[in-house]
């Protein structure tokens, strides 16, 4: 079941929370939804899951409009809301059974599904406690378990790994990747390495508009017009090397980073690579090129570039 978002908008008073965004997510794809606070991520997710009414435009799940078939479509969605609201006075098992029943799981399968979720989400030790007695990490697992209890085709997860310890984060990411092979997954997060670890595609949204859409790699390519390389060249004085480097055609700027170690940072002219030239220069002069490290633009920088200004 794919998700198609067409020209979706939502307005609160004078403020446009979501401003004509369109995108599509296919089964077998994990989409990472990024954006600063208040960018419209949660609002979009709430409209997909049918909690908020759609302002303008449309959301289609498997070709069916949420406007018309909203209540039927909810059965196919697993949703983990922001802040993970739970009935704190309910025991874990009762809560999961309640959710399964509401989602239309057949009464003979409820026990099996609940056991499965307890196993997958690692809740076995805590399953008889009330949810209010659980730590934040375990509550998060309960939230994930309730979202997946009916084996939905579409998963919408609003910040799924907040409050988890690093081991749990690794597990949950693995689980999401696993689920993403067959299902359509949309997740939002503030943790950028998480997006790289779990998502096939990244969507960055700012002030209600989509500012970037693509894989982590293609975003990098877009963002870095210029190649940046760290160099260490031995057997000559830094000044002589600087001079020679500056003469190379494809090099834009050269900076001496570390005098004693002969380390340089080189920025190539936009769209060009200077690696071969540097190598040949060293061969020609008989210098030893002991380090050549291409610097990848960090996702954080791309994110900051796109969402400030």
């Amino acid at each position, binding site marked *: 079941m794919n998700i198609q978002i067409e020209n979706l908008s939502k307005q609160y008073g004078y403020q446009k*929370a979501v401003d004509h965004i369109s995108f599509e997510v296919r089964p077998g794809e994990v989409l990472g939804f990024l954006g600063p606070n208040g960018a419209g991520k949660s609002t979009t997710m709430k409209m997909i899951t049918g909690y908020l009414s759609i302002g303008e435009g449309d959301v289609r799940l498997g070709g069916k409009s949420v406007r018309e078939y909203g209540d039927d479509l909810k059965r196919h969605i697993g949703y983990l809301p922001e802040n993970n*609201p*739970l009935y704190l006075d309910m025991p874990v098992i009762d809560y999961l059974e*309640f959710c399964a029943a509401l989602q239309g799981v057949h009464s003979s399968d409820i026990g099996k599904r609940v056991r499965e979720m307890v196993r997958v989400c690692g809740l076995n030790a805590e399953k008889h406690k009330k949810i209010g007695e659980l730590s934040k990490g375990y509550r998060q697992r309960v939230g994930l378990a309730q979202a997946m209890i009916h084996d939905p085709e579409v998963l919408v997860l609003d910040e799924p790994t907040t409050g988890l310890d690093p081991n749990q984060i690794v597990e949950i990411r693995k689980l999401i990747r696993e689920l993403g092979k067959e299902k359509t997954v949309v997740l939002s997060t503030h943790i950028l390495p998480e997006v790289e670890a779990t998502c096939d595609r990244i969507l960055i949204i700012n002030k209600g508009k989509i500012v970037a859409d693509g894989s982590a790699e293609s975003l990098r390519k877009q963002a870095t017009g210029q190649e940046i390389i760290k160099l260490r060249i031995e057997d000559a004085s830094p000044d002589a090397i600087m001079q020679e480097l500056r003469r190379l055609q494809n090099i834009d700027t050269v900076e001496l980073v570390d005098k004693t170690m002969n380390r340089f940072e080189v920025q190539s002219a936009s769209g060009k690579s200077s690696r071969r030239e540097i190598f040949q220069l060293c061969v020609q002069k008989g210098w030893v090129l002991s380090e050549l490290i291409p610097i990848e633009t960090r996702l954080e920088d791309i994110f900051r570039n796109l969402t400030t200004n």
Partner: protein
Amino acid sequence: MNAVLIIAKKELQSYFDSLIAYIMLVLFLGFSGFFTWLYGSDIFMVGQATLQSFFSIAYWTLFFFTPALTMRLLAEEKKTGTIEMLLTKAVSDRQVVLGKFLSALMLVMIALAFTLPYVITLSKLGNIDAGEVICGYGGLVLMSAAYISIGLYASSLTNNQIVAFLLALSIGLFFHIIFDVLASSFTGIPAQVFSTLSLSNHFESMSRGVVDSRDLIYFISIVFMGLFLSELSLTKRNLN
């Protein structure tokens, strides 16, 4: 199982888990038992095999207890945000409202079922009018249903339980007594309108054993109105 029943069952369960149900049962049975059998114009004072005194005291106790039952139904879910989790399950807003309404009504009916020994005791003491007893209980159930739907609406308007309680009580007060007072201080058409709106008039005729379709329509339309408005205000949700 239908979503309405699943929600009703869960809510009823949480009434009992949170002790609200036990407190409500003890207080209701305590009050109504005390005034029916022991104090004031009780059955022995009246000297007739009739449950009139019970019905008139239950008329007041239920009026105060139903807002206490309904105040948390939607307000708490809105406050903790669980309403979002609930409404994104495969249920409609209407099913949520109906399920919650049903759970409170079932609790009131359980409370009323505990007063059936009164009927048995009284039937041993003298000849009771079965029709009057059935109508009286029916009237209490209908009245509770009306106040529950009003309480549910109050609870849907706010995320503060105390506000929901007081709001339900003040809306209920109009039906319970104020319309009746207004009816007696006006004449002509306004008096008729107020007396039609007054819940006590309709309840009194039922508790005397008179079933009038107008009374039934009156109670049922309050229930429908309350549930309809609750659903409407639940649908008009905004991001908090």
